[in-house]
């Protein structure tokens, strides 16, 4: 091998190496040194182009800009920037809107000024577990099957089932739901209590409702934001429940809701509107019909907000439940009942189910 050939070849290789090492740099400009003002602009624009509920909530996002933009300057501290953005995003009145920094998380209180309508300690002591306090003199402890807590109440030789589901984030397996519902097979009616259920995985909605029907039903429709204009939405996607599983419960059912029911729980409540044997009792849910989109700001903070709309069929139209699913029968917990160990909403549900049961006889 000639030394000159070797050096020539080596030089070509080194040049090729150096060229490819930095080849992508012009196409990967991803380190913008943004200041507070530019971060504000970035988030405002992301929301402007992607948020899905401006029209329905009657929000003029341009005027929001005019109010908040002057507050932010290039030298605004990150704490001031965060609190300003917190306040600005709060105007969307949406529980699916959050801004996350290393020192704080912005949020919207979905149950602001609404009655609590739920007392877990009371339910355990007076309804679920055996003991002197129990209203139904139950002899057996409640079952905890996966994430489902269930008990059977006997009133004048008539049985009513009760299931409490605390979070749609907790998975429900086929085994869990089928065992629970088959345990309810001899009851005359069923209460499904989803109060204080803040949502989670929508797949769990179908694990339940597909076993409450013997026929396919149109339960809700969704549209996804596709363009930058505030009313640019794609085609309606219709969602159906379809019978599933070995055991189906098609007797009268009452769903208990309160204002802390959010997101997937609101979807669940909305889906139940399509079932003639299901009655929603309690308070309007907290809403959350828009599926959220997550992202990151140039300064590293994370955000999310709704980018879809959903509604359940009501006549020829869809009722958008972003602001909550209203109950069929509105009832709040009575403070005096609560002091006496009575859950007004559960008792109302039992009364309804017993009435329907006797009417069927």
């Amino acid at each position, binding site marked *: 091998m000639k030394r000159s050939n070797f050096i020539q070849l080596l030089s070509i290789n080194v040049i090729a190496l150096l060229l490819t090492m930095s080849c992508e740099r012009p196409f*990967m400009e991803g380190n913008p040194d943004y200041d507070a003002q530019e971060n504000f602009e970035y988030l405002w624009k992301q929301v402007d182009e992607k948020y899905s509920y401006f029209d329905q909530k009657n929000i003029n996002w341009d005027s929001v800009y005019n109010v908040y933009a002057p507050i932010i300057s290039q030298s605004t501290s990150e704490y001031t920037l965060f609190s300003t953005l917190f306040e600005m995003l709060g105007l969307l009145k949406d529980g699916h809107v959050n801004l996350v920094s290393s020192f704080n998380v912005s949020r919207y209180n979905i149950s602001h000024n609404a009655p609590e309508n739920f007392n877990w300690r009371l339910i355990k002591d007076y309804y679920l577990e055996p003991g002197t306090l129990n209203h139904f003199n139950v002899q057996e402890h409640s079952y905890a099957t996966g994430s489902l807590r269930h008990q059977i109440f006997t009133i004048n030789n008539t049985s009513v089932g009760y299931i409490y589901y605390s979070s749609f984030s907790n998975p429900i397996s086929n085994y869990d739901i089928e065992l629970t519902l088959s345990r309810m097979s001899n009851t005359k009616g069923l209460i499904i209590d989803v109060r204080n259920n803040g949502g989670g995985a929508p797949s769990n909605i179908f694990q339940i409702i597909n076993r409450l029907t013997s026929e396919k039903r149109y339960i809700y429709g969704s549209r996804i934001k596709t363009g930058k204009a505030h009313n640019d939405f794609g085609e309606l996607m219709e969602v159906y429940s379809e019978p599933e599983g070995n055991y189906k419960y098609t007797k009268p059912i009452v769903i208990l809701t309160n204002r802390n029911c959010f997101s997937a729980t609101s979807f669940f409540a909305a889906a139940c509107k399509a079932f003639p044997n299901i009655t929603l009792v309690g308070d309007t849910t907290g809403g959350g019909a828009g599926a959220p989109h*997550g992202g990151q700001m140039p300064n590293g903070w994370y955000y999310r907000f709704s980018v879809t709309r959903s509604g359940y069929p009501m006549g020829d139209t869809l009722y958008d439940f972003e602001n909550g699913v209203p109950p069929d029968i509105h009832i709040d917990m009575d403070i005096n009942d609560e002091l006496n160990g009575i859950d007004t909403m559960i008792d109302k549900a039992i009364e309804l189910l017993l009435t329907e049961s006797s009417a069927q006889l």
Partner: protein
Amino acid sequence: MAKILVIFIFVFITIAHSFAQDTLNHRKRLFYRGDRQNSLSTSFCSGIQKTIDEGVSPLLYRGTTLGAGIGYQSFRKNKIWNISGAFGTSKQFSPAINDIGYYQGYNIDINFKYLWNLDKQNKFPLRLYAGIGSNQTNRLRINEQMFNAAFNYDIMWGLGGSLHLSKTLKIKAFDINLWKWYAHYRPHKITFEYNIDFPIICMNLRPSYVVIENFVGNNNTLFGSNTVKFTSINEMLYIQSDLGLTYHLRTKNEIRFAYIWQYYNIQPEYSPVAGAMHLFQIIFRFKLNDFDNEAK
């Protein structure tokens, strides 16, 4: 970067010299077919990975990646076909000091190429092969801070041209005599190689980042297969090149030290993404048979 380079050079030199003094093994190898050289390879790589996924963030994420792979190559004087697969993992961070998240990345690559010799008469000083290449590239990322957009992915398949240039040089034997330490370096061959793949027909799959699929049915279409898009270089640019130095051992096995550069850029309407990797790779190639034509 410099540290990784130094470590690889050290490992390469150490292993190369330990093999270099082996005597020739004349045992018959598997699958003997004298008209071609079949070989199996195993590889290890490390380097830098960069990602900018504008669907969820304007920030350029950057971090180190580690990987390993296997491959099979059949080399004939006039044809080369090669199939290889690799898996890697990476951790990428943004430059924002307020960023409490990071990308945990997983890379899966499957490459196939079939090349023909363009210079059968050996008129050029370099060996030149060209043909078709198919690349399946999967870049999966998780940033748990991104709520419903926590799972990011770029799944790409490309079919296009592939080019291979090589030049083999012989290093003559020489002696090293350092005071009481003496070594005889036997003659060896080294090959400089350059490969580049440039897909023309492409398919990509990107998330819409609107996690609505499971809200609108009981179908958890995890990868949103309805968003698969066939495209070409106007919407998707995807280049992979590697520059390598192969050291031919006296056992006829090979050690290859390579620098790999990979870049892709997908520009769908909703969420553009670009990614790049700079990898230093070491390949141990085990020959399965003898080859009548040793010149490469």
